[in-house]
């Protein structure tokens, strides 16, 4: 019983981080119609900078319980790479999507070296600062409160994104732009600034995801290239451009991975691709996506 609970928690924790990155992808695709291969690079960027900032903060003697807010700050700060990259992408908005895909691929190549230049080739890791929040133990079940906080943070992000998109004027403006860019612009929406904001937000979701995961994990140069495929799987399963889709997709991928470990470990990675292909074939718009073209 505790195995299932443990697996479930593990799966959900993984899903929480996946969701953040995937949500960034979805936001950018939803509004700008760009599939961003560099989302994994943003994730890695957040992870590396998270370590840097936490280490710095600890050296300054900031109390350990500030970990979570510091990581959030790290993620938010790194979103600063968003606007210049958006400026670069602006040159291909009106072009074929293959060019957009390629430009983000170019970013993936470039980021690999940027990360190495700044943080070196060795993986980086924090010590167990995240256990400062303690552990919940329940019989055999033991889970760091930090993991729950990350799950909660991802949940809160989902909630606030949805709140932002549904309840704020700017969010409505974004949805209007996503649906019909020309009409929104004809009603006075400055689409360029909206794009810059959206891309920065999307970037931020990626960097925050990376920053939040790093205390339980580590930052390494290959994490970008590995992660992007999983994030892709999430958005394809959930439906391109759909926020609820990102949530459902992330949960599915997280839980399937966890479940396959018990049921049939050989199948772990394969399972995800098989599901991606099945979804694309039978519901190309994804489980919660709008009709595909």
């Amino acid at each position, binding site marked *: 019983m505790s195995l299932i609970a443990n697996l479930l928690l593990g799966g959900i924790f993984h899903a929480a981080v996946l969701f953040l990155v995937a949500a960034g992808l979805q936001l950018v695709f939803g509004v700008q119609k760009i599939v961003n291969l560099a989302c994994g690079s943003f994730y890695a960027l957040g992870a590396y900078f998270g370590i840097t900032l936490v280490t710095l903060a600890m050296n300054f003697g900031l109390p350990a319980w500030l970990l979570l807010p510091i990581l959030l700050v790290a993620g938010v700060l790194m979103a600063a790479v968003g606007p210049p990259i958006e400026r670069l992408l602006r040159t291909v908005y009106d072009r074929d999507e293959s060019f957009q895909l390629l430009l983000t691929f170019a970013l993936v190549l470039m980021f690999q070296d940027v990360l190495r230049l700044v943080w070196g080739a060795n993986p980086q890791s924090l010590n167990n600062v995240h256990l400062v929040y303690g552990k919940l133990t329940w019989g055999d079940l033991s889970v760091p409160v930090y993991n729950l906080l990350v799950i909660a943070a991802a949940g809160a992000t989902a909630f606030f994104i949805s709140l932002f998109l549904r309840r704020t*004027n700017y969010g409505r403006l974004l949805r209007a732009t996503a649906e019909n860019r020309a009409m929104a*612009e*004809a009603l*006075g929406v400055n689409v360029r600034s909206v794009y810059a904001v959206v891309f920065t937000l999307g970037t931020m979701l990626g960097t925050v995801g990376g920053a939040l995961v790093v205390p339980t994990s580590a930052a390494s140069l290959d994490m970008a290239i590995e992660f992007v495929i999983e994030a892709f799987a999430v958005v394809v399963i959930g439906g391109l451009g759909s926020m609820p889709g990102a949530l459902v997709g992330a949960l599915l991928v997280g839980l399937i991975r966890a479940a396959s470990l018990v049921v049939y470990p050989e199948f772990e990675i394969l399972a995800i691709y098989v599901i991606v292909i099945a979804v694309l074939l039978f519901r190309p718009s994804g489980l919660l996506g709008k009709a595909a073209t």
Partner: protein
Amino acid sequence: MLSVKNLVVDIDGSPILRHISLEVAAGELVCLVGRNGAGKSTTFRTIMGQRRPVSGSITLEGRDLTQLYPFAIARLGVGFAPEESEVFGDLSVADNILLPTWTRQTSRSVDEREALAYRVFPRLERYRTRGGQQLSGGERKMVSIARALALDPKLLLLDEPTEGLSPAIVPSIVEGIASILQLGHAVLIAESNMHHVPDFADRLYVIERGEMVYAGKPNAVPKSLSAPNGPDGE
């Protein structure tokens, strides 16, 4: 106020507008009549900045619009209700109508602008919370016009405002347009049906195959233009 001179527009290298000129003075109601494909929508979209003209000029109160982005043109006070209504399906009716109040500040308060929009189409009050997807064609049309009105525009571009509406509503739209005029806005309407041109139109242009074939008073249109050149397409 709005002055279009010698406008030439190509789409993918094909000429769509051929030396179009038209004028709208402050407070005027001007109609642009022509069947579908004649170039009315292209004229509107070019005024809105969605298409770049090959040559010619468009000025609003003396200010050149051809180099501006559509949002800047909208913020100068040009409201636009397109032919297909283009109501945001993801947003409620209320949000659709409020949207322009978030992008443009005017001397009128948001509440006032909202109230004006609903005053023109009172029945929209009932649909406030309804999603844009759950509206009939006529309702969408009304939302689209009300939304353009909520921008508190100096100039309102209405592309086929009565198309697809049940005849019972047409008078209320026409009344709506009249009240818009009373607010001091200028209105430019595109119409495919000569019969739908409001009686109180100040001026009328007839466009055919991208060429202006008539400009003048509504009651002086030659019979040859108004008769066989009838309905629009699908």
